[in-house]
């Protein structure tokens, strides 16, 4: 069953005359002249039964989810695709061909819990649109849990990160989320901020009063500390505390992100 992104915003009107000082300071733009449309392709019954959705942003978080969470099979049960106006002519630049954007995928964990692994190449101008499409496709009574990994160098603290605890994990939650002691104690402190899809989801959920919590692990890669951190976090959150999280990898993860070039041909 397809569900398209809400038409709450129309195509923006364009100004008649481009001013002389028109520049992009403070702005980002869509690639094409039309606002993209995201479409959820997931069975309606599955969406209606879903009470918790775990969102994974980035390669490391997706790796963790696919390797350690108890997924029902390794194949996805649905996807979220971006429809854009593309130039269909093939463009060869340095041996690469222009491709349609890769979809984001939905996996089943159990009847009430789904996993959504987000395409790592989503641009900043699409964050809100993507998040809104996912959230509005499900019941407003569901809970949202977001996992993301950020480089350790992004973490700002008075002490250098070498002297901080491992795993370095922090959380942010919407006001509708019932934060327990563990989540409150590791709240992401200022001056640190969170961007990306995690911010998109938290913002949409905050506006719609949906309980949502994001866990960000500061690390350079997916190591045992991050796995432990995510596991501890998921077990501390009521909607995911029953999940049987494997400490070792369940399925071999094919690295689809490695692309070969023609530099040495």
């Amino acid at each position, binding site marked *: 069953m397809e569900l398209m992104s809400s038409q*709450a*915003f*129309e195509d*923006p*009107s*364009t*100004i008649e005359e481009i*001013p*002389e*000082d*028109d*520049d*992009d*300071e*403070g*702005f*980002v*733009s*869509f690639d094409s002249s039309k*606002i993209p449309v995201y479409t959820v392709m997931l069975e309606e019954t599955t969406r209606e039964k879903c009470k918790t959705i775990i969102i994974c942003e980035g390669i490391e978080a997706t790796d963790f989810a696919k390797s350690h969470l108890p997924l029902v099979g390794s194949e996805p049960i649905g996807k979220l695709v971006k429809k854009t106006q593309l130039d269909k002519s093939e463009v060869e630049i340095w041996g690469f061909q222009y491709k349609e954007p890769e979809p984001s995928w939905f996996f089943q964990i159990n009847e009430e819990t789904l996993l959504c692994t987000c395409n790592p190449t989503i641009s*900043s*101008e699409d*964050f*809100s*649109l993507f*998040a809104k499409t996912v959230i509005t496709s499900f019941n407003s009574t569901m809970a949202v849990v977001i996992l993301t990994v950020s480089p350790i*160098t992004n*973490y*700002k*603290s*008075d*002490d*250098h*990160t*070498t*002297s901080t605890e491992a795993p370095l994990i922090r959380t*942010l*939650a*919407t*006001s509708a989320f019932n934060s327990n002691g563990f989540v409150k104690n590791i*709240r*992401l*402190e*200022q*001056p*640190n*901020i*969170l*961007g*990306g899809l*995690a*911010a*998109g989801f*938290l*913002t949409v959920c*905050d*506006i719609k009063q949906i309980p949502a919590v*994001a866990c960000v692990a500061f690390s350079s890669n997916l190591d045992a500390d991050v796995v432990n951190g995510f596991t501890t976090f998921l077990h501390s959150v009521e909607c995911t505390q029953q999940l049987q999280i494997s400490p070792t990898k369940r399925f071999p993860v094919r690295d689809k992100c490695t692309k070969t070039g023609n530099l040495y041909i």
Partner: protein
Amino acid sequence: MFVFLKDKSIDWSSLQDYTFILPAVSVGNIGQLSVDLLISSLRCDKLAKVDHPIFVPVVGSDPYDDIREQDLMTAAELYISKEKKLVILQIRGLLIKEFCADFLAKLVDWIKICSFTKTILLSSLYNYERVDSQLTGSPFRYTITSSVKSTVEEELKNLQWSALETRRSVWKEGTEEILFFPGGGYTNMLNKLCGKMNIPLVTLLIFCAEGDNIPGVLLITGHLNRWLNFVRMANDTPGWKFPASWKLFFGAPPPLTMY
């Protein structure tokens, strides 16, 4: 567009004698940093969140007080100071250009409904785009729309502020002089829209570049404070309270072990 926080709902018409301050997302983030300083120093209360597709999302903990409020910080929020009769919009993230016209139209409609006594835009311009007369002296400038009251215009003149100079249009033939806002984000668009809708808008700007712009922020907010007297002065200097979000602007300290 505005989503009130719990128990904070108000009637927009009750803001008739308030002043509205908003930033432009412009070079050096001058407007946004200035608004940060005002909200922190005046201990403004968060009133509402702004829900519009223009904003690139960003979230965090309360940037002004880690202890007092546990509400999630989002990309754009509305603050109020009932004591100072101030409403302040803060924008923390980038903007999506294609939605700018719609956002500004809705914002201007809202400003009209509230009927603020003053609307003040804090902005900045690229310092490499200055004309000769702007190269020396203070980098501070102001502009007003045509519907600004003569009393306000008189106040600004008495403060001995410099109005933003016009310059000859490069694109058009002839000697037409225009107001030029390079690096000002939506400053030009908002000025034109307010002019068209007869909204009195005062724009305060400084010329700057990317980098550490705290001195520029103190300059523009100092000028604003000299005009409107929000923050008490101590030895001719306003008693600004820097927000918690200004810590570690340029990253964490280096590891001591490397020495």
